[in-house]
């Protein structure tokens, strides 16, 4: 277990349905339960082996916002009274669906 963990790269790639790729730290991506389970080495999913998650049903615009949230979450991990992240109103319903799918 420890050997497999040490061999895991620090960054993972998230790919949107329309082909945009986002390279973000593994720890931030694991804020999402869905991605965490995808990347869990014990699952032996192809995502876990390649470190590349293709999220077919999420568009690039939404995934960009999701990645922004991952970093925002990481940054504010231990703080009380965190101000809400700015979400453009036209994006919020799509983002909500994505958040539900990603278990975030």
């Amino acid at each position: 277990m420890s050997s497999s963990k040490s061999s895991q790269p620090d960054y993972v790639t998230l790919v949107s349905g329309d082909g945009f790729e986002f390279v973000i730290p593994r720890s931030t991506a694991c804020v999402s339960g869905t991605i965490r389970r995808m990347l869990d080495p014990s699952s032996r999913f192809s995502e876990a082996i390649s470190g590349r998650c293709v999220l077919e049903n999420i568009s690039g615009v939404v995934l960009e916002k999701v990645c922004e949230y991952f970093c925002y979450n990481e940054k504010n991990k231990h703080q009380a009274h965190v101000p809400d992240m700015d979400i453009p109103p036209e994006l919020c319903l799509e983002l909500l669906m994505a958040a539900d799918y990603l278990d975030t």
Partner: protein
Amino acid sequence: MANRRQTRNQIRGPHSALTDFLASNNISAAQIHQDHQRRLQEAERQAAVEEEGDVTVGHDEHHHVGELPEERKKRKRKEAVALANIKQSKEFARRKARRTGESDDDDEAIAREMMHERSRPLPGQLENCEACGKRFTVTSYSKTGSQGALLCAKCSKVLADDEKKLKAKKRGARSGRRQNQSNLLDGLIQQGALSLAEMCTKRVADNINDIEEFGDLPSQLLHRLSQILCKRRVLTPRTLNLFLRPGIDSIDIYDAAKLETDDFEKIFTLMPNLSCVNIRFAGQMKDKVIESMLGRNLKIKRLQLDAANLVSDTYWRRLFQNLGVQLESLKLSNLDFSLDDESVEVLCRCCTNLQRLKLKQCWKAGNHSLRAISNLSSLEHLSLSFVQEVHTEILLETISRVSPKLQTLSLEGFSNANDRLLEVVHDNCLTLKKLRFSHNAACSDAGFVRLFTDWENPPLEIVDLSSMRDLDNTNPESPTDAIGLASQGLVALMNHSGSRVQKLNISSCRHVSHSAFEEVFSHEKTYPHLKELDVSFHTVIDDYIVGRIFRCCPKIRKLVAFACFNLRDVQIPIGVALIGSLKAQDPMIVRSAY
């Protein structure tokens, strides 16, 4: 006759009620108009005189060359009086407050500035705009620009908009702390960021009026959205439409106060698959709605209605008969005079599969209802809050008959119930998980000790024994045999249920002593599941006890302590909400876990 003759001599137009009223109060439009004209003329005359003075002499005394000494003295005296008057005005104080930080001799300058402003053009005159230079008509809404001259309507609007923006920004900054305090009162201590889903849900709720439809949002998100919208009281007929989706089998509306009768009918028309209905503050729900519900043969299994007090008893009975055995859960609250004993009897006769029953604040329900409830053999959850006094015997019989399967027993406001009820609970309830018995002054501490000692029931998870105390005003010191839940009772309760209890409310049980709390929260004790504790109105609670509580309850998230006046400087562990302490503004003290 005399009256008519008098009026014949005068020529009059049509009389309105307002004219009559004004006349009877000695108010005449003509008079008002005349006064106004006179004032305008006077002001104009004054302005003209001042302008003349300006042309010939100017402001400074060096320029008053052609003036006679007496005239100059007179003018200066007038000016001094005017300035003194201005300095006493409210407007002057306001302006001064705005310019704090500048030197004191500024007073004179401000007063002079105001005096010159007073001679500004009157409404109706033409003037050149300070900003854009255009000629415009002065109105009373014209604003003053940065150099003291007037602005045209367009520029005034721009200025007003800018001011508004500034104000809005200020408020935004302040509401953060308010929101935090408000969250604290709700027991929400936020650590780190909110989840993305929660943040988006809030954002959707913010923009609810721009949303056309929700698409295929999953029902648990719809539920959360409904909660947020209802809390903000913006669930209107328009927003309701977003929630009406034929595929979904449940609807939860926590605040239906803004919905009309038609909207309720629409719910049942558009959602034929409904099996769980939860509508609160349903004030406009009437017989018509129930009728349309009955006509559709809905498969409702769980029904919760709050404040539907316009539904008549006939329709309640028809509803119960129609739903019959398919109904598993019924919660009715705040029905006032709408549900009578006979309807409850019909309910208990027809809906024999009821597992969960809650009747709260239904004013007409009494002894007969209670007796009818005793026939419900599959009941697992029972919550009653009656307004009418009931016979203790009937209550005891009902509880003993339904208790074997009960997981929840909640009795509020049964003031007659005494230790015998506790005995019945002790002897008959064997599967209870939640026990609420509050607002009672007849049970004794010894009764509670007997209830919780050697009770076969497994440890309780939710316990609410609030307001169990002596209420005799003539005897402020409690009687020697403690009334309500007191020291011994609390110790027995925690010995019995401490290992599983998650929520405990013992507020206002005022006879628990300091030493009893010390014993309950002593070093060797832990309550591994306790998350919420309410100890309001226990004046013996002090910093030491609260510190012990935090140590004995590793999972505690919410401690309610209103009116605990001995709480001074408590160290609050991170992630715990202490509600009601005297210093509400205290920052949360961040400390590592024990």
